[in-house]
């Protein structure tokens, strides 16, 4: 078992560590009406910090021993399945890159260990044994056709699971409160505010305090908590960056919250997990944590050189397009890291999207012929394109 190393020691060889570069999602074929994503070569990452080491930062784990065993088993199995994936984008919370994911991993392993040992194991031992021992041919074993009740066994059958559930309940109560996505993370630093708007099929990240925004890449300062507000300009979506922590829905007219933090510079896969049409599988992004200095440089650079986030830009963003299609529509090539960056982004954008969605300003105009009830910016996307009407 000694050979089962912590992921920290050899992350590059484990299956959850992620993908090779070179498969930008725009390589994936056809969207909607046979639109093809524009082919883009993904160039080496920007900014270029990579994270190769990970570490376990857990809460005090009551089942450390058990935990270690299970972890070893998991890791060994994993190592067997895939022994080489030289990658730099973190895919999984099992290789956590921030405090939230880290607690989740510990909690997950604890729960798996508990359930494996106290629930699965007895059954996996006893059942095959009974089945063999009392098979029809085994004439020598006892046969008690009328034996139908035993108070001791009944009590045990109920109280065993009940005790386990009671224990789980305590763990669950605590962890649920600790991991509430709405709960701000404890830190000396004030949280970085990010407003997230879900569009078909990309996420728009607005940094209201910096006046910049991005699509496709979510740059973050490492070590500083991030406080996200989310909404959707179209259908229900769900934002998740597994290596950093929880997911939360984004819905039209509603504002949800999510708090995350990256411990150190690195690249993390981010996605929408709630199916929302043809471009769903392309609605991915990379969260990039960088040093505070690098982050500030990035902000300055975008403030100077980004695309202005004005009404006409927002209108283009609200079209049902993938990121690549949007870049083309903006007459831009994506930056070398696949992102599209904007400046002149105010927090009004977010609130006006929420309001416009709630008022149904656009939906009204387009589908029901009612008069517009608000003068908010018309940014809500209308419909998925008439899709290639195919059948299963």
């Amino acid at each position, binding site marked *: 078992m000694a050979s089962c190393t912590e992921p920290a020691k050899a992350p590059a060889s484990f299956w959850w560590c992620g993908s090779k570069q070179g498969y930008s999602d725009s390589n994936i074929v056809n969207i909607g009406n046979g639109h093809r994503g524009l082919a883009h070569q993904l160039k080496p990452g920007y900014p270029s910090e990579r994270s190769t080491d990970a570490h376990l930062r857990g809460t005090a784990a009551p089942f450390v021993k058990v935990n270690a065993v299970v972890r070893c088993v998991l890791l060994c199995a994993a190592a067997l399945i895939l022994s080489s994936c030289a990658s730099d984008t973190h895919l999984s919370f099992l290789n956590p890159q921030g405090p939230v994911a880290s607690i989740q991993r510990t909690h997950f392993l604890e729960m798996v260990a508990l359930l494996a040992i106290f629930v699965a194991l007895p059954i996996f031992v006893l059942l095959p044994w009974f089945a063999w021992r009392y098979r029809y041919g085994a004439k020598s074993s006892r046969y008690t056709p009328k034996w139908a009740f035993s108070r001791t066994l009944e009590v045990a059958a109920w109280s065993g699971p009940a005790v386990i559930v009671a224990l789980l309940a305590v763990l669950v109560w605590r962890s649920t409160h600790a991991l509430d996505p709405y709960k701000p993370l404890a830190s000396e630093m004030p949280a970085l505010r990010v407003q997230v708007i879900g569009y078909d099929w990309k996420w728009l990240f607005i940094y209201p305090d910096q006046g910049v925004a991005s699509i496709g890449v979510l740059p973050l300062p490492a070590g500083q908590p991030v406080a996200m507000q989310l909404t959707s300009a179209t259908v229900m979506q769900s934002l998740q960056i597994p290596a950093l922590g929880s997911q939360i829905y984004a819905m039209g007219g509603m504002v949800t919250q999510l708090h995350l933090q990256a411990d150190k510079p690195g690249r993390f896969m981010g996605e929408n997990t709630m199916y929302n049409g043809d471009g769903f599988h392309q609605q991915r992004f990379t969260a990039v944590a960088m040093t505070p200095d690098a982050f500030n440089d990035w902000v300055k650079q975008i403030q100077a050189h980004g695309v202005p986030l004005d009404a006409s830009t927002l209108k283009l963003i609200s079209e049902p397009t993938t990121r690549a299609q949007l870049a083309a529509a903006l007459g831009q090539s994506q930056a070398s890291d696949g992102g599209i960056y904007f400046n002149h982004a105010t927090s009004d954008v977010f609130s006006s999207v929420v309001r416009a969605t*709630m*008022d*149904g300003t656009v939906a009204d105009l387009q589908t*029901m012929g009612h008069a517009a*009830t608000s003068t908010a910016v018309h940014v809500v996307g209308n419909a998925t394109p008439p899709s290639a009407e195919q059948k299963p």
Partner: protein
Amino acid sequence: MSRKAAKYPGLNLSSAHGKDHEAAESLMFGFWVFLMSDAILFGMVFATYVTSVHATAGGPGPFQLYDIKSIFVETFLLLASSFTFGMASLALKYKHSTPRLIGWLAATLILGVAFLCFELHDFSTMFAKGGVPSRSGFLSAFFDLVPLHGLHVAGGCIWLICLVGQIARYGLDTKAKLGIMRLALFWHFLDIVWIAIFSVVYLAGLT
């Protein structure tokens, strides 16, 4: 005093009736179960309404749309119809003459139809004030709940007419009796739903 005979409204098939009695037992119980399923349906629609009261989206709300006088009349009509149906049940159970039974049923029908007329009138005034279902989440929820009850009443009225037709055709046979007994349950049940509607929707809305 024994209350044994008061099992179901109008249930007049004692165990001496053998097969018919058995059929009545299943049928009445089955109908009760159906009503309870229907109650859940109404419950969910109520829940929709309660959680959407404030979703007026700038459109008209209860104070602009509801007319308490009209609701009071409707409540009274429905209560009266429950009473007349009760009388019909008694007429069935204690074997009063068939015309008398039909008379009570007719009275119930008239009250039911009157209720529906008032309700339709309510809806049309609401429409005139811009209270259309596509205006807001609140109005959608309103027009889910109240007309659903109205549709039930309308269905009850049609059922009642059919039963009278059956009596005219076959006399008061077991099947017609069982029909009336089930309709009685249905009718009283709808009155109970109405209590919830006038309390939760109208009175609470106008408070």
